[in-house]
């Protein structure tokens, strides 16, 4: 998976992980994903449009996520994102990686 050019956001990989995880419970449109993450993290993590949509583009380009325009429960039209099978695989790997990393950091900091 190639990193997007010019984006120096260190949390980039993490954002994609969060998006994939959000989508693993079902298809959502962009706003819903942002709300979902914000809500579950108690607004500690607030996702800007400027980072959300590029991340979604990247996920689509790599085939981890597909999108389709659908009607919302309120009758409007929005683009819904769905996680693909390889997206789920990627999610699993990324989560393992995340776990290992946090454990390592905790050890270094003497927090285990």
């Amino acid at each position: 998976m190639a990193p997007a050019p010019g984006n120096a956001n260190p949390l980039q990989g993490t954002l994609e992980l969060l998006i994939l995880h959000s989508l693993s419970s079902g298809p959502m449109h962009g706003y819903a994903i942002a709300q979902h993450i914000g809500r579950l993290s108690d607004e500690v993590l607030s996702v800007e449009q400027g980072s959300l949509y590029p991340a979604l583009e990247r996920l689509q380009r790599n085939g981890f996520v597909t999108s389709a325009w659908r009607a919302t429960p309120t009758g409007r039209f929005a683009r819904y994102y769905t996680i693909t099978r390889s997206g789920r695989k990627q999610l699993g790997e990324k989560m393992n990686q995340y776990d290992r990393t946090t454990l390592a950091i905790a050890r270094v900091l003497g927090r285990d």
Partner: protein
Amino acid sequence: MSLFDAIRYRMRSVFGREKLEAEREAEFRFHQSLEQQQQRHVGLSPDEARLALRRSFGSDVYYREEVRQMSLASRLEAFTRNVRLGFRSLARSPEFTLATVLTLGLGIGGLTAVAALVKSVMLTPLPYPEPERLVGIWMTLTKLNIESGDHSDASFFLLKDYSKAAVIGAYNRAQVNLSEGDAPERVRGINATAGFFRVLGVTPLLGRVYTDDEDRPGAPAVVVLSEGLWRRRYGGDRSIVGRVITIDGQPTEVLGVMPAALSFPNPDVQLWIPMGFDPARVLPASTNYSLIARLAPGMTHDAARADMQQAMERLPEVYPDAGFGFTTKQYMEIVGARIVVHPLRDDVVGDIGNVLWVLVGTAGFVLLVACANVATLFLMRAEARQREAAVCMALGARRGLSARLMVEGLLLGAGGAVLGFGVASAAIGALVRATAARIPRLDEVGLDLPLILTIVALALLVGLGCSLLPVSRLRTLQVSAVLRAGGRAATGSHDRQRVRQTLVVAQVALAFALLAGSGLLARTWLELRSVQPGFEAGPVLTFRVALPTASYTGVPEITRFFENAREQLATLPGVKSVGVSSSVPLSSSGPAHNTFFLEDKPEAEIAKMSTAVVFGSGDYFRAMGIPLLAGRGFERPDPDQMANEVVVSANLATAHWGDPNAAIGRRLRLAPTVPWTTIVGVVGDVRMQSLERAAEMTVYLPVNSSWLSMGTTGGAEARLVLDLLPRAMTFTLQTSGPPAEIAASARAMMRQLDPALPLFEVAAMNDVVSASMARTTFTAWMLAAAAGIALLLGVIGVYGVIAYTVGMRTREIGLRLALGARPGLVRGMIVTQGVRLVAAGIAVGLILTVMLTRSLQALLYGVGHNDPATLLLVTAMLGGAALLAAWIPATRAGRVDPAVTLGGE
């Protein structure tokens, strides 16, 4: 599945771009509206709402750009946009574009043409199956200092029977008369053994080649034609196989036609005749043949050579008698024969290699000069557009600017490639037509795909490379300084100037080297022209005839014919004297060579002496203006008697008897078994082979010389006599007017004497001499052209740099003038700068020249490769031209009006 999705997504971004953009817009607006809803719901104050809105707006722009950057389509779109912009900006500065494309095109085209030549002539293998197995077998005569001597038929038989290394073929050149029908024609061909075709392995176009059985003495006459001859003379008639044509008066059956691909050793060859070696009459001392071979698979050259050398050691036991009174053992000791095996390509290419590599070097230099020029042009253009560049950088679009510059470089490179292709094609066309230079394998030269790709790649690379110079300058561009100065750069651009100065110095140096090389070649040409060849090339018409064996069987018939013809031709109006000779100096038919013996000199020294043998008659010496130094010329030959007199050249006489007069009355003979002949005259030395080679010792025999009786030994030598008879002779007519005017009447006269006899090699003696210098003339012209281009480019380069400096220093100059400096002083200042540049260039050029002209040595005559006079002349020329180029802007500097320059901002 993910790969499929990924691909599908990317395809969409290329082909459904607008739809995608619209969708993104819609999605974005959807997100916005939900956000606003949320904010209203949460109860933000209007200010906070506006702030939130503006924040998301900011990220909006960023997002759009981000997304757009990522898609493939945007990259393609960016490239096409740059290309369009590049075209427009190049069109806006037509002189720059034109100058760059022209320079690149010339440089690249020239190099490609020469490279095509080198590739086809020297690098491409011969067009026969498995060409790496083909070799030429050379006989090096170590004791006579001859690198590539001819073989005898003994070598052929010996190698064929005792060497396991290869399939052998022998050949020698022949010229025959084709005389059926009413258009007699003299045609070049080859006598070849049947194995010759097996060695080369080419399948006939029609019919077949002759077998070993048909290649015997006494077998019925057969011939194989070339495709060219078949189409030209026989109209491509497919029923030619089996037809009987007349060759040298003899009815000969056509066995087959060979395709044009078989053009060994050169495309002149029009037919193949069986060699007809007689194994019962083998003469090791009579050498006249070339051997080629196809090595057994896997056999190396060294192994083959060793094997063949071993076979040759058996020569004395298999053929003990060498002929002419020598035993084979004696003969082998005299000559010190060694077998050498060369790739067959060397036989075809000959010594053109030197010239070609020099041409490659020259073209390479010209290209370097051209590149330096183009780089300078780019830099100059970048200076002019500094302001625009500064603005772009200030806006943060440096990457885009670099991309645009590089695309411009690529576009110019592409233009250069197109022009280069045209130039290369034209150059190759011209080279192929310049047959006078006698470049072999010219029919194979052409622009093939690898070369075209090389042109394109080279051009693009150069264009890109040159554009990188201004791009790298961008990094050091002081944006604020440029913007403030309103477009005129601060003088703090020292290292930019330095780059340009380095480029100019390089150009001057390269131009110097090329001019020096050209000068050396020009002097060689002049030296050759002033060589005294030993004869007066006044108005003399020459043409050659060859008498077929069938109608002119022996010496009496031949002598009678030539005497008759000579007398008749002498009666033509406009003809002052007529002579006949078996070989005319500097022509393509060189003299035969033979050992000789002197009655009053001991035999032991004989081994080293070899002389040219020329048959002459009538007023040959007078017609050619060869001075008679002692004694007399030939008397009228009596056809029914054998003459016992000879005339020798001055160097032979003085070498053995000191004074030409002392040679008169001495006796000499050409073989131990023939009668002695008396020296009746001594003539001046003549350079027979080439203008560069010193005149060799020559013996002139009358047409009915007793040498041709070969004493009383019969057998093999008797057969040899038939070969030696002077059937092919050149008439030399001294004319009072231009030689060409006599040609028609001479032809008519000869046709009266014998209608079936074709005339060939009809030429004025002046043209023959010029043709012998053709290769030097050709090389000299090429170098001169290259040097001229380099000189022009170098001078333009100097002019450009100095003019630019003046432009940049206008304010400083105005200041100096206002402070009271005289215009002359200012001019001097500028010119001094020019002088320094040119001097540096000449110094580097001198070093370069001294290193490189060594490789020219093989082409030079009468001038050393470090000839001081030439170097001095070139220095003066280049220095003068460059200084003139510096003078013009310097004059302008002197005329600067301080009021104007200082009064402006």
